[in-house]
């Protein structure tokens, strides 16, 4: 009996110590921790993104042997979209030589921002996170290219203004926002309010708490009663399909309902099916799998097995986003290696990200012509001022229905700089003086 207890204790000790010991060991190569959520309430979307990320890394590993001869080592850490678990993932994996943090959660991004300069690991919050981080002078370790939430929101206003026949026609109109009650959901409110004062439209917003995601009756009743000219959505998870369904059920015109890029996947429209026809969403890359890079993924990652590829969400919007994200990480890594040689550090990776210049030629070299739009990251501009594309659900699939819409940089940039200075003051940051 006693021996049995000792044996159990021994096994328990081994079980605890073994995983800890592995964190200290890192293979030679470019180590990329991946904070993923394949479980929990947001798993359907999180899995697609994770599949896209791994698909790209696997493809360049097989096709090119890595990046500039360096092996890529990526490791998933499941955090269930829970910020505390995400921080635990970060702390556990940073000892392996993390070259970047790619949180895919605004809540987690905010938690990692103060850690980045200490651990010297840059953060890429691609199109999400803290908008103010676009000002690289205050936040040298955080990147949100190709476009921040505020730039996206300003592109939304430009898009609907153009649709109404000109920005002057926004005067007296009503624009609403329905959002997931969270830091992410609240992020664009300030921008919409500021633009409302400028262009003369009335703005109202409705929060959806997590427990109300699958209900939303009250919010949609209020929305329909107010009868806005356009409704925007900053949603995620089951909030999205419910909102699209409720909009239809409550009689709100679908062609006046536009979601942010987190609200524009097949997951969000398929449950409502044909009734979601006309619903639109913003995005900063084209939907679908049509570019050379997608073909290479099909060939090298999935061995041309389309059934296998489809099983891994090949071509779905969020899968494409994962691919796009991985492509930009690889570009940062490539820049750093070409500048500093092998065995790059987090600080050198930051330099690599800061020197991304995604021109038409570079997109073509990457096999991504038409997949994304050119943008350039600089020392002071960490968002790259990327434009936004609009896609529409035709009842079966997403189709592009707009040209690239430029954000209102003349309005947004001063706001970003002001927000960055305010946020930076909270952490006693000083402004970089090496940005020209």
């Amino acid at each position: 009996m006693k021996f049995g207890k000792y044996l159990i204790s021994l096994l328990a000790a081994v079980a605890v110590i073994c995983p800890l010991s592995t964190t200290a060991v890192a293979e030679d190569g470019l180590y990329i921790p991946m904070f993923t959520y394949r479980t929990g309430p947001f798993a359907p979307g999180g899995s697609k993104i994770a599949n896209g990320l791994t698909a790209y890394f696997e493809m360049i590993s097989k096709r090119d042997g890595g990046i500039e001869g360096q092996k890529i080592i990526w490791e998933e850490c499941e955090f269930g979209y829970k910020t505390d678990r995400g921080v635990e993932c970060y702390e556990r994996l940073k000892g392996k030589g993390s070259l970047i943090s790619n949180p895919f959660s605004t809540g987690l991004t905010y938690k990692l921002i103060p850690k980045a300069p200490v651990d010297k690991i840059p953060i890429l919050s691609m199109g999400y996170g803290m908008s103010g981080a676009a000002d690289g002078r205050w936040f040298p370790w955080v990147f949100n290219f190709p476009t921040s939430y505020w730039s996206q929101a300003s592109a939304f206003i430009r898009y609907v203004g153009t649709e109404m026949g000109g920005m002057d026609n926004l005067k007296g109109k009503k624009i609403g926002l329905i959002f997931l009650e969270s830091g992410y959901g609240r992020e664009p409110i300030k921008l919409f309010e500021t633009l409302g004062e400028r262009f003369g439209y009335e703005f109202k917003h409705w929060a959806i708490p997590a427990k109300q995601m699958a209900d939303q009756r009250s919010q949609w009743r209020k929305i329909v009663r107010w009868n806005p000219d356009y409704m925007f959505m900053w949603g995620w998870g089951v909030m999205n399909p419910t909102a699209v369904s409720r909009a239809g059920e409550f009689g709100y015109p679908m062609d006046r309902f536009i979601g942010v890029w987190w609200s524009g996947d097949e997951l969000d429209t398929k449950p409502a099916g044909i009734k979601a026809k006309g619903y639109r969403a913003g995005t900063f890359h084209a939907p679908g799998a049509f570019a050379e890079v997608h073909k290479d993924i099909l060939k090298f990652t999935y061995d041309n097995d389309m059934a296998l590829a489809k099983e891994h969400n090949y071509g779905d919007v969020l899968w494409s986003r994962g691919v796009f994200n991985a492509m930009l990480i690889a570009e940062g890594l490539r820049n750093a290696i070409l500048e500093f040689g092998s065995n790059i550090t987090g600080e050198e990776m930051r330099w690599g990200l800061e020197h991304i210049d995604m021109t038409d030629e570079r997109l073509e070299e990457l096999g991504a012509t038409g997949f994304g739009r050119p943008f350039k990251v600089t020392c002071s501009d960490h968002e790259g001022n990327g434009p936004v594309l609009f896609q529409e659900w035709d009842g079966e699939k997403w189709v592009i229905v707009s040209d690239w819409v430029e954000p209102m940089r003349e309005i947004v940039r001063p706001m970003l700089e002001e927000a960055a200075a305010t946020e930076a003051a909270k952490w006693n940051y000083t402004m970089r003086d090496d940005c020209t």
Partner: protein
Amino acid sequence: MDFLYSVTADPVLQIVEDPVFFLQIILEGLMAGVMYSLVALGFCLIYKASGVFNFAQGVMMVLAVMCMVTVYDAGFGILLALLVAMVFMVGLSFAIERVVLRPMVNQPQIILFMATIGLAFFLEGFGEFIFGGSSQKIVPTEALHIGRDALLIPMFGSEIRLQQLDLTAGVCAALLVATLALFFQKTTVGRALRAVADDHQAALSVGIPLRSMWVIVWSVAGLVALVTGIMWGASSSVDFSLVLIAMKAFPVLILGGFTSVPGVIVGGLIIGVGEKVAELYWGDALGGSIEEWFAYVLALVFLMFRPQGLFGEKIIERV
């Protein structure tokens, strides 16, 4: 002063000015209430018959509907899919009784409650392992003959809008309650279940097979979970975020009483109407999204004055 106006006179004026809209809110509240009642029904059944507050009821709901949709998506008919889901829930009940409940016989209720918390975590992980946490499932509403259109009823120059899905949920809830009431009041098994709930040991001493009773009641709660999951899943999609809906059952149970099936229905309707009316007429004045906490505050007030709920049994313990 503005605040006082917006929480006192303004809501009343709004109701008087647009009574059709008020009626619309009441009806929507009733519909939402039925949906809450369906969730609470599963909790109530298990508590009524075994004295266990089953924290895992929300996960059971998701597992049931996921099983049904998975079988249907695999190309089998809807009837077979429903049958397989029912068998799955009965099998799950057997397993829970054997692994979780049996070793806990005669333990204090708090121990059983803690066990169901552990069960909830296990079942969520188990469900993600079996059905895949990443996949989104869509309830086949057409195959189940659940309408997704709105019914428009003209009224005083305006119109009332009702959803077919909500009406279907109402009919299902009514059928379930009627069946369960008959089951508990008129059948031998139902009476035995009530005896088990009162006292495990006493029930055993008069020859009631405790284990079988637990399996039966957990199976029935599993079937209720399947209906609930279908109704909730039909309005959006089926994934593990639906587990959060179980939180809505707590105030319903406190209000209606943990042991009363009709109480659960009435509690659900009160919560549904209360929170919708509060959100629509007082929500903006109180900062918005008040329905997130309104139900809990209402339940708290009820706890102060009637802790056993509207229809719950008053607990008298002699010392």
